[in-house]
């Protein structure tokens, strides 16, 4: 059971990739983890806990899509299927220690970026704003927002990777 809850970020990543919304993905994973608790006796030891939990999240995601009447156009269905296959193939289950180290590294690196970079990240992740809305809020052009977001994430990624390399 502990292992299932340890996959939370991986499951959130998967749900977010299908729902395109952080808050809705958090709700879906929350619901899924309740199902995981209730059905844990059905998990077959020796198989992938991440894949098993993902199949439960998948049902919750589809329920959420229906609940919110989210777009289920053909294009969306095709994309969901392709995303599903990509996660089946490439998603790996990180060990708890590794996840904690990464999170610590992110916190450390966030303190090193510019004020503007931080403001853009906050608008994007906490407020879930689009480029235009961020631009309106921060007095930036859409292009400047796009560049700032891309550059800040890249800087953070480099910072986190190098910090993890040093630590290991």
């Amino acid at each position, binding site marked *: 059971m502990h292992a299932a809850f340890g996959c939370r970020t991986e499951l959130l990543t998967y749900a977010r*990739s299908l729902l*395109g919304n952080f808050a809705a993905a958090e709700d879906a994973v929350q619901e899924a983890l309740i199902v995981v608790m209730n059905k844990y006796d059905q998990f077959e030891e020796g198989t992938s806990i991440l894949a098993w939990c993902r199949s439960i999240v998948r*049902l919750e995601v589809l329920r959420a899509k229906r609940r919110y009447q989210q777009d289920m156009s053909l294009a969306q269905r095709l*994309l969901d299927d392709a995303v599903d296959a*990509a996660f089946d193939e490439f998603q790996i289950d990180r060990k708890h220690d590794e996840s904690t180290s990464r999170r610590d590294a992110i*916190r450390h690196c966030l303190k090193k970026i510019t004020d503007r970079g931080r403001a853009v990240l*906050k608008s994007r*992740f906490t407020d879930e704003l689009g480029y235009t809305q961020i631009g309106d809020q921060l007095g930036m052009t859409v292009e400047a927002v796009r560049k700032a977001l891309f550059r800040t994430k890249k800087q953070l990624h480099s910072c986190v990777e190098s910090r993890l390399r040093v630590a290991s």
Partner: protein
Amino acid sequence: MNTNQTRDELFERHLQGELSDVEKEHVAELLDSDAAARQQFVELAQWDTELGETIREHAEPKDILQSGKGTLERGGKNRFLHSPFATLVTVTVLFIIFSSFLYLQIRTGFAPEEKIVLSQTASSPIATITGLKGSLLWTGNQGELVLDMHVGRQLTGGTIEGLAPDSWFELQFQDGSIVAISGTSMLTFADVGQKKLRLKQGAFTADVVPQPVGKPMIVQTPSTVIEVVGTRFEVEALQAFTTVNVREGNVRLKHLVDGNSVNIPADYRVIAEAGGDLSPMPLPAAENYWKSQLDVQAGGFGKWLPATKKRPAAQKALPLIPVNNPNVSLSLLSIPVSGRSGPPVVLTPHATFRVRGRLHDAAQVHFGIAVSYGNGEFAGMFRGDLLKKQPVSEIAEEKEFEAVYQLSDFTVDPCVRKKQDSLARTPDGLYLDRLWVFTDTGRSSGLMVHEVELVPAEIK
């Protein structure tokens, strides 16, 4: 910007739910065709989510992102937010919103959380549901959404959408005219003295009583406008073309691409497509042998994949949760049969269906068909796998399988058993409209079908 950066940005916008339909299709194609892109996508999604989670966790109350200088207070807009004038404006706006809300509650009993599933509308009913099955969604003219539909329910104008290949819906207008949609179809309808319908996609049949003089029923598809005075006919609308089969009376069809019009008499059909001939052709004689032609886009439900060096063209299954069984996740595809440019297909006793395709792993492959009577009226749905005479489909080295279903083993689809008195009891002698194939393994089974063949007993 290099390819990886462009992809990263596209993937990042996908994670925020910001892609257009065209971009979604592009990303789907990219992921389907390129393993490196799939890996890049999953890694980016993982990194983006870890970053987002860390930021969101610390957003309140002690914000990890707040610098000592107060980033957001540097701009003029943010200074405005703290001015006395802004406070006054905010209080006024809140008062107006609150008053409006209170007024709405008192006048209409409207509560925000009920907006999604309103059962009553201000408009008068114009039609009654006379038959339905499968997953359907009705959106009324007032924007209300209704998933809980039942026979006898009266509807105002709106849009009815079949969400699954086995969806079917029949509606009777106040004057007795009957229209029905089947499969993944979308039909918008209204009747304000003149019936106006728009078939955005899918298959539609109609039995129309004589309409008032000067007010024919109007049916619009993406490429045509059809005027109906009183007749029985079928329409299949795809983005590229519209097929109209007329069984009784006649209809007038106008092709929107070039503005040409044509009258279609009984027992004739027109296939309206860009650059095509609009002359009515006699409805072709029925045939008993049929083979899918998936080398061209098939329509139906699923993703059409063109042929590659390694495999023939195929229809790939997509995930689907049945409305009446939300704990099940199917991988499902459907292929339309009759109603296209080919002749209608009639099922003969002891005929056999052969389904060839691919699966990731061995699985039970389920198979169903929808049939109609000679006049185009819906006749029922049948399943070829319920007697469990079909073994689990084993896969060969290339992950290919072949499943065979004998028509004599077909039983009534459980979804239509309640309506069985008014539907056919066996599929023998009926017209094959469409078929669907699915697995129920709880995850993506990789099901795709290269070919379906209907072989009558005399050929076997």
